[in-house]
């Protein structure tokens, strides 16, 4: 059982983080301007940076 939860977290942990960041970013820019916009750039930018990081700088073990 314990192994199962670990697998789920292992597979879905980062995708879930990316999804939460994206959805927050998409909504905050809609709600307000100024700081809200800046927050949205950050929240949507992090997943893109993660993506590029994993693609161009893969971990050594791979």
């Amino acid at each position, binding site marked *: 059982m314990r192994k199962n939860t670990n*697998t789920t977290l*292992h*597979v*879905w*942990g*980062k*995708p879930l983080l*990316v*999804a939460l960041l*994206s*959805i927050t970013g*998409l909504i905050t*820019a*809609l*709600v*307000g*301007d100024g700081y*809200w*916009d800046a927050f*949205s*750039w950050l929240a*949507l*930018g992090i*997943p*893109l940076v*993660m*993506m590029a*990081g*994993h*693609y161009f700088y*893969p*971990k050594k073990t*791979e």
Partner: protein
Amino acid sequence: MKLKSAKRWFEWHKWTSLICTLFMLMLCITGLPLIFHHELDAVLEKEVVAQVPPGAHKMSLDSLAVIAGKQYPTNNIRYIFWDEDDKNKIVFDLAPKPDAPPEQSKYAMLNVYTGELLDKPTTDGIMDVILKIHMNMFLGIPGKLFLGLMGILFVIAIVTGAVLYGRIMKKYDFGMVRKYKSKRLQWLDTHNLIGIVTLTWGSVVGLTGIINCMSDVVLALWQQGQLKEMVAPYAQQQPLTGKLSSLDEAMVVAQQAAPHMEPRIVTYPGTMFSSKHHYAVFMRGNTALTARLLMPALVDAKTGKLTDARRMPWYVNTLFLSEPLHFGDYGGMPLKIIWAVFDTAMIIVLITGLYLWFARRKASRLQWTRLSEKITADEEEY
């Protein structure tokens, strides 16, 4: 059993993707310049500036309307738009008949302070062509609804793709890209990595795109629903004849009905966005969120009195809010760039997906050839 259900998810992912991929590629590619349409318009078309002489006052809307009417004597005004970025500009839409198709519209852009004709905008530039392709492929409402259907397939492909991601990634780490094993594995890993990162953005832009495809349905619902209710007392009246009441008075009346809002669009009697007897003054809010929502004030175009002003129903507001979420034009230039990066990433997901399908087909064909060769060889031995 597990294998069987995995196979089923795979088949769904394969077929929904295959059907919509080419259209999605078209949408992503045409969508890319459309993200920056505002900036590109400024480059492609001559930028006109509305000079405001010192001490000048705004001209009355009625006198501006007279000037606009003189530009196209055979047409009549049917819509008036305030420029969203430059409050000194106003655009009149003139057509032979209030309910004529949009292609018959002529436009006149005036300086609000001087009444000077700034431009006669047309809708045949390169950006308009790209927009038309993106919206309906020049196939009108059927084309639009068809693209909406492709959007639904796209969203199903995203969901099934996510399920497959979960199955595939059980033994691997997030972000793994096997670059030195085989081309197919590299493309598969790229497809998975970019696919899972763009999942939320893709779903939101996909779903809001589907909603935008429903705009004509939403308009019809509003016409038959709220608009009809608001003008119910006029149902039996004869259509308006003779001179219409003053626009400026209508604006005053609308402003009183919606004190903390500003006018965005005026639609004339007999158009798609009003009744046969009213000016509809669409007022918008003044915060980031409420500026996206409109509130129509219906003003009797004979007496100049307010008939009704109501907030729009949820399905219209859903459409209004889904527009920025689809266009990405609601958070300044950085958000547009983020939109463009996601859009490009989506193009890569589509192309790698298509490649994987080709590669798989080739692989299974080779496998089959080998198998059948073996069988023939075995048979020959007997």
